[in-house]
């Protein structure tokens, strides 16, 4: 079969590919073909603007202002990676908060929340996080896949415009700030945990002022133990 004839055989698939309407198997087969067919690659480049035009042709709607605050605010908060060291007591700015944190630590073992359990699979592992008494309605799991990890949480209250949630990684007495995030309207969040987890003892989440904090300023709402 000539190159041109072989290309003709893929023409319809190329158009459907540009539209994103192939099954995974069909897409895989075409992408394999694209590696060796410059004609099909050129065909896709030609049709791509047509597919884009369909999405750009919808009736305009103005996004609400709170969406901008959620998106841009989270990005600004995450753009400030910092690392600090020191004991937990030094992470807390005020005595009252230190007391609250200590209380949380003391009664963590008695928490009626979510039992810690490991759930290892071939591709990674999942650790159920434990909600503290400060946030008994939270459900969360830390999902690790290779070098990446994400914390999946449900039941979060809206933090309000002046606050965000922030994840922390504790290694011994050292606590490093990780991702800052806000939940969606249903109280769900999937926060990518940035930072070194191999030596970590636990991942925690606190509520922090907008922009995040260099050290926890409130008591943890949940903990995922890795030790």
């Amino acid at each position, binding site marked *: 079969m000539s190159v041109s004839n072989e290309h003709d055989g893929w023409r319809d698939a190329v158009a459907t590919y540009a539209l*994103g309407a192939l099954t995974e198997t069909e897409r895989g087969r075409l992408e394999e073909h694209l590696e060796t067919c410059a004609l099909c690659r050129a065909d896709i480049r030609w049709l791509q603007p047509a597919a884009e035009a369909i999405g750009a042709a919808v009736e305009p709607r103005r996004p609400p202002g709170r969406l901008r605050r959620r998106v841009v605010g989270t990005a600004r908060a995450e753009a400030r990676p910092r690392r600090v060291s020191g004991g937990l007591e030094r992470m807390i700015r005020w005595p009252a908060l230190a007391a609250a944190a200590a209380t949380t630590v003391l009664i963590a073992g008695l928490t009626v929340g979510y039992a810690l359990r490991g759930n290892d699979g071939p591709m990674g592992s999942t650790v159920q996080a434990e909600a503290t008494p400060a946030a008994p309605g939270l459900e969360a799991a830390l999902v690790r896949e290779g070098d990446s990890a994400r914390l999946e949480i449900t039941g979060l209250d809206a933090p309000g415009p002046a606050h965000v949630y922030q994840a922390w990684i504790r290694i011994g007495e050292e606590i490093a700030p990780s991702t800052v995030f806000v939940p969606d309207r249903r109280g769900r969040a999937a926060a*990518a945990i940035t930072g070194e987890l191999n030596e970590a003892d636990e991942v925690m989440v606190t509520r922090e002022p907008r922009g995040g904090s260099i050290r926890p300023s409130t008591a943890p709402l949940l903990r995922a133990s890795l030790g």
Partner: protein
Amino acid sequence: MRRRKQLSRLADEELMPLVATKDPDAFEVFYERHAGAAFSLAHRIVGDPGRAEDVTQEGFMSIWRSESGYDAARGSVRGWLLGVVRNRAIDAIRRDAARPAPALGLDPAQILDRRPSRTSTDSEVLRGETARELRGLLGTLPREQMQVIELAYFGGFTQSEIAQMLGTPLGTVKGRIRMGLEKIRAGLAEGQS
């Protein structure tokens, strides 16, 4: 503020490398430039403003957190973003357990008629004009071509599902998609000339 003003003068292709370096000012300019289009598309697909907000947020944050960044080979920046948002929106409606399977007699007209009300503002007039022009172009397509294209793009159905839904041979669906896209592409080329 002054820096954001300078950034706002950059073309999308110049802005995206800065977004890839996690520059929040560049990301804010990127958001302001494309949030309207992204939200409009998300709303068109999921049909609910609240879910459209979630989908738009997911799309922008996935780009912000992405390690790979924008690749010019994927098309225009706006097209790339809309592709990301579209995929998220399709995932969202697929997660919706209430969505009936095509084999159960889904009426394609219900999907095609799921259009949002118009709420554009003065600031979006220019983009609205462009969208209107594009809609005019799409309006020139034969109905059967537009139907399969909308079911695929907005409904998230595969070509096989569309064939089953419409009771039409798969080859016919493929051909209609191909002819429809080629006609849109030719119309775009004419508009540029």
